[in-house]
């Protein structure tokens, strides 16, 4: 069977997508959990029985609640220093006073990354640490099926009222007797989201028919996202929150009866970083305040100390005890002891015993060797001393001695709890190694196959023979297949922990095994063929004769260097620096190439000595002093291309690398990304701040105009008009949602969702893409000249540009302009005159695509994904388009460069008939190499400190990128198809 490079590369990528998916499924661990909550469970443990005959404790039930009514006020993105720092002093006077003088306990609760709202709510309510994978499903949160506080409260007959972020309503459907969910749909809405919550308060506090009230305020988070933590809006919002807390506290106090006190809990789900976003693990994002306010507590005596550190998961157990509920079974949290500090010693011991029992049972269910765990051992010892204490207590011993002894037991318990929960938290990072290995094997085999087929795939025919029916290989295939199946059976029967690959159906598993063995046979046959060829005396003349140019050296060094840099967490965090550095160097080398082309054999022109001078570094290759003979071809090429450029074109061509460099420098200062320098002021923040709305509007308008001029030159008339209208629509959409203003309307009018405007643009996007596809189909069916095809491709491209213009935030529109500008200049003045081959051009396109990914403001952290792009033109959350739009907006840079590559290569077909195939192959190779290496690196680093905050998000980005590249390569192949038909005709 004959395969073309493009087809081969795309099928390789498709297989690789499968491998990556399998790896990701194995890598992101399933969180520690107990049996599903609806299954039968044992009764709560009785108080440890005292030793000796005849003595039985009479406490067998869960203790009664300690608080009558509990109000939980969750302020989204409340950072610890907003309450405990200078901001708290300034803007939250009432809260500050309660903390300092009132009956309250304050803590700093540590949130585990990912610091995103939904996993944090889960952590607060279940006490478990949600797996990283929860981030991905953050958008469409399904109902929480694990045992949790809300469910327990509901089954215990408590009446729960909820107002706030509707994530809760989705997580706990039918749990609330009354609720009002507000969506965080519009991030720019600062007041309405909170007024929606506050307006219910007066009514609720007049009533008596509730036990638990949960309020989730979103405004602070929105302010953080849009303006950052230091904006004046934060102060105003904190003051508002302080007033609300005051109101709640006073009405709680006024309702208090003699029987039981009420409790007010104030917490944040996560903090915010210095730029106002969240998701990562910086100190600002992780540390949130946690306040318990109740008249049951003792008044603070003595000066205020730094609040103690607790875990966010501790809230679930503490609230469960406070409400007299069983602790959720998956909770890894510890009871916060001061909250129950006012109770008698016997009760306190009972609470920590319940907590310890729950933790040790969770440990039993999750580790086979639980008995050797130090936490479990501690717990057993503490339980014994507890029993002894009860014995003394029941015997009615001296209260002084009993108290001291009790304190000792309490200490033992607390220590046991701490060890237990830390060993349980560690369990979250348990990997499904078998699935990971299978995925890695597939990916590595694909990479090896791609490597081995480089010479064939990049030959002028770009085709190769795939032997399908060699008897030796078929025998080998069956043998390997059988062996792998045997391994599979052995692994799956002996594995103790849950394994995803084992839980798949037998047919799928055998299919995967067959795939692996088929790939193996392919590799072996490729190796065999290479040996066969090397035995033949004929050498491949292409490889041996031409030496390496500077571009080749740079491309190789850059690719290898980038791949190696992925092993260091800082280089992953600051990956954008790598790409900026590489494309800068690439531009300088291109400049040097251009200079050589223009000056080497021509008259020297003093005006441009500077250009030459700066590049002498790269220009001289000391290797070449021993005059090689093979320079004739190069000289010939130089002469021909020197003739090609003349007059003013020559000067533009010489200047173009410098213009590109300046563009890149400007883009770099548009969006600061990464971690270390992300807080630096950048142009993007300046533009988005509300004072610079008119500047932003001007910039957006100019950018849209530029986009039109850069795109329209190769479009047909109809798509030109559609493009112009579409870009107008983009501006009016942005004006409608209040990002930009029209010059004639100075007062900000009502802000709408801009649905009509966005849909208006979508119509034109679809129209342009449709026209392009029609042209492509025409060129395919009627096989007319290639100009129809290139127009069609360009129209598809311009449709995507229009879509990107709609989805990009207005301050990012210059990225699009510079992208188009650089592409135009490169095509016209650099690639055409220098006559690079398809492989080099592809790799340069790939590099620029990567750099533009970061120019857009993306990073390797989850927090920079612009989710709002998924809501453009949609009334409410609709899964498929939202995911598509978000992915497109995030990967717009790489995608646009890839499609441009296709446009360029298919216009080069006359020069090199296999250009598209080569491009597709190189593109697949460039993507497979980092993914394969990164997967191996991540497997090695899976116990690294930064695995969750740095390496895992990057892994997700890589996985999605592979998927997108596979789609692009399929498009490439489809475009390549008709061309090969034509050649055969």
């Amino acid at each position, binding site marked *: 069977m004959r395969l073309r490079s493009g087809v081969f590369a795309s099928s390789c990528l498709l297989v690789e997508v499968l491998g990556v998916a399998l790896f990701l499924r194995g890598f992101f661990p399933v969180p520690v959990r107990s049996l599903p909550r609806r299954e039968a469970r044992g009764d709560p443990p009785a108080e440890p029985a005292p030793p000796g005959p005849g003595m039985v404790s009479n406490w067998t039930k869960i203790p009664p609640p300690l608080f009558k009514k509990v109000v939980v006020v969750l302020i989204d993105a409340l950072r610890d220093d907003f309450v405990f720092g200078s901001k708290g002093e300034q803007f939250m006077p009432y809260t500050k006073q309660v903390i300092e003088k009132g009956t309250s306990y304050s803590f700093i609760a540590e949130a585990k990354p990912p610091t995103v709202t939904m996993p944090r709510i889960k952590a607060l309510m279940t006490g478990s640490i949600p797996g990283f994978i929860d981030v991905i499903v953050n958008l469409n949160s399904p109902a929480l099926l694990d045992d949790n506080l809300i469910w327990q409260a509901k089954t215990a007959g408590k009446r729960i009222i909820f107002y706030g972020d509707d994530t809760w309503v989705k997580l706990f459907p039918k749990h609330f007797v009354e609720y009002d969910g507000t969506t965080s749909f519009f991030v720019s809405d600062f007041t309405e989201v909170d007024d929606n919550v506050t307006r219910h308060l007066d009514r609720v506090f007049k009533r008596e028919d509730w036990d638990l009230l949960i309020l989730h305020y979103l405004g602070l988070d929105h302010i953080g996202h849009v303006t950052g933590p230091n904006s004046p809006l934060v102060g105003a919002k904190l003051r508002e929150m302080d007033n609300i807390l005051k109101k709640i506290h006073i009405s709680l106090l006024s309702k208090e009866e003699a029987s039981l006190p009420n409790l007010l809990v104030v917490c944040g789900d996560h903090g915010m970083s210095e730029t106002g976003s969240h998701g990562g693990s910086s100190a600002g994002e992780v540390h949130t305040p946690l306040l318990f306010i109740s008249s049951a507590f003792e008044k603070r005596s003595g000066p205020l100390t730094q609040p103690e550190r607790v875990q966010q998961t501790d809230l679930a157990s503490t609230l469960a005890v406070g409400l007299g509920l069983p602790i959720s079974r998956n909770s890894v949290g510890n009871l916060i002891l001061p909250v129950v500090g006012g109770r008698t010693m016997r009760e306190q011991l009972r609470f920590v015993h319940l907590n310890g029992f729950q933790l040790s049972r969770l440990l039993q269910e999750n580790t086979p060797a639980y008995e050797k765990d130090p936490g479990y051992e501690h717990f057993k010892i503490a339980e014994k001393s507890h029993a002894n204490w009860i014995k003394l207590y029941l015997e009615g011993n001296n209260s002084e001695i009993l108290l001291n002894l009790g304190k000792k037991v309490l200490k033992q318990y607390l220590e046991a709890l701490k060890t237990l929960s830390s060993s349980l938290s560690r369990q979250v990072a348990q990997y499904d190694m078998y699935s990971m290995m299978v995925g890695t094997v597939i990916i590595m085999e694909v990479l090896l196959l791609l490597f081995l087929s480089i010479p064939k795939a990049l030959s002028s025919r770009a085709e190769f023979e795939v032997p399908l029916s060699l008897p030796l290989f078929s025998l080998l295939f069956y043998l390997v297949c059988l062996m792998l199946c045997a391994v599979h059976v052995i692994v799956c029967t002996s594995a103790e922990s849950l394994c995803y690959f084992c839980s798949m159906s037998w047919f799928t598993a055998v299919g995967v095994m067959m795939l692996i063995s088929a790939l193996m046979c392919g590799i072996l046959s490729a190796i065999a063929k290479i040996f066969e060829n090397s035995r033949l005396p004929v050498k491949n003349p292409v490889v041996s004769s031409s030496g390496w140019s500077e571009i080749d050296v740079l491309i190789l060094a850059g690719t290898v260097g980038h791949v190696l840099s992925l092993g*260091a*967490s*800082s*280089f992953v*965090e*600051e990956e954008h*620096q790598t790409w*900026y*550095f590489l494309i*800068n*160097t690439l531009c*300088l080398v291109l400049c040097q190439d251009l200079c*050589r082309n223009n*000056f*080497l054999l021509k008259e*020297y022109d*003093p005006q441009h*000595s*500077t250009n*030459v*001078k*700066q590049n*002498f*570094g*790269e*220009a*001289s*290759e*000391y290797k*070449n*002093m*021993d*005059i090689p003979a093979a*320079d004739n071809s190069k000289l010939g090429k130089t002469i021909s291309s020197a003739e090609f450029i003349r007059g003013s074109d020559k000067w533009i061509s010489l200047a173009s690398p410098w213009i590109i*460099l*300046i563009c*890149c*420098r400007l883009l*770099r*200062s548009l969006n600061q990304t*990464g971690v*270390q320098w992300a807080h630096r002021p950048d142009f993007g923040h300046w533009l988005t701040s509300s004072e610079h709305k008119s500047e932003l509007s001007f910039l957006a308008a100019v950018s849209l105009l530029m986009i039109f001029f850069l795109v329209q030159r190769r479009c047909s008339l109809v798509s030109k008009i559609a493009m112009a209208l579409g870009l107008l629509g983009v501006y009016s959409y942005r004006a409608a949602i209040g990002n930009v203003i029209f010059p004639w309307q100075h007062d900000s009018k009502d802000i709408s969702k801009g649905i009509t405007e966005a849909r208006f643009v979508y119509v034109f996007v679809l129209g342009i893409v449709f026209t392009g596809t029609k042209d492509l189909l025409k060129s395919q069916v009627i096989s007319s000249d290639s100009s129809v095809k290139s127009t069609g491709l360009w129209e598809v491209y311009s449709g995507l540009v229009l879509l990107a213009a709609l989805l990009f935030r207005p301050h990012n529109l210059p990225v699009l302009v510079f992208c188009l500008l650089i592409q135009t200049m490169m095509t016209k003045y650099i690639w055409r005159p220098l006559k690079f081959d398809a492989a080099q051009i592809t790799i340069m396109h790939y590099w620029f695509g990567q750099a533009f990914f970061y120019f857009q403001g993306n990073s390797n952290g989850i927090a920079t994904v612009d989710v709002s792009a998924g809501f453009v033109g949609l009334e409410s959350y609709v899964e498929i388009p939202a995911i598509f739009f978000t992915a497109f907006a995030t990967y717009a840079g790489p995608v646009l460069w890839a499609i441009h590559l296709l446009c360029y290569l298919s216009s080069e077909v006359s020069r090199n008939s296999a250009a598209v195939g080569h491009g597709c192959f190189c593109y697949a190779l460039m993507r497979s190499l980092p993914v394969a290496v990164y997967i191996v690196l991540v497997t090695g680093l899976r116990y690294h400190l930064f695995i969750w905050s740095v390496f895992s998000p990057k892994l997700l980005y890589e996985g999605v990128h592979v998927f997108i590249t596979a789609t692009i390569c399929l498009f490439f192949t489809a475009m390549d198809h008709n061309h090969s038909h034509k050649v055969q005709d």
Partner: protein
Amino acid sequence: MKEVEIRRLLAANLLCVFAVILTAVVPGFFWEGFTVLGTHLAWLCICSVCVGTVNVILHLVLKPNHSPKRSSFAHKISRFLKCCIYFFMSCIIFHAIIVLYGAPLIGSVTETFLFSVLLSTFTTLQCLCMLGPNTHAWIRVFSKNGATSIWESSLQITTVCSILGAWFGAFPIPLDWDRPWQVWPISCSFGATFGYVAGLIIAPLWLYWNRKQLTYKSR
């Protein structure tokens, strides 16, 4: 003949290496608190000045590009002025390139400029000494197979090594080790200096190794 030349080259280069090493050590005796890391900017100045002076003196003493024709005093003056302008221009251009590579545009201008002066000293100044303000010769030397003497080959090697050193010196900046030498522009100027020193040492050795294959076109 060739070996004698190479030996002279080696001696000259070793002198330059010593000059670099001395700039790191000697000022400490006269100036309390001088360290290469702590007072990096001062070291950058001292190093540039010393290497520049040594280069100029070596050039005057050794006269590697023995031009036969005598030139007038006025001609010499104009040559010298031209050299100064070229050197200054090269500093500006290096500065611009460094900013394009991502150095802050407004903040730490002094650091960036002194670093570009250092780079110019390692590269442009040498070229000016060897070739004069003659751009023809520059293009010739820095195009393929353009060197016409051992001195010019050495010039090529040291220049490329300095620039490559500075390029590699930028690598550790994003690492989060919080070391004092990761501060801009210390790692880069170290890289450039190490590259320059390495180039100075490599050049004579490499030329000696390949002395059989070396064939220079006569001018």
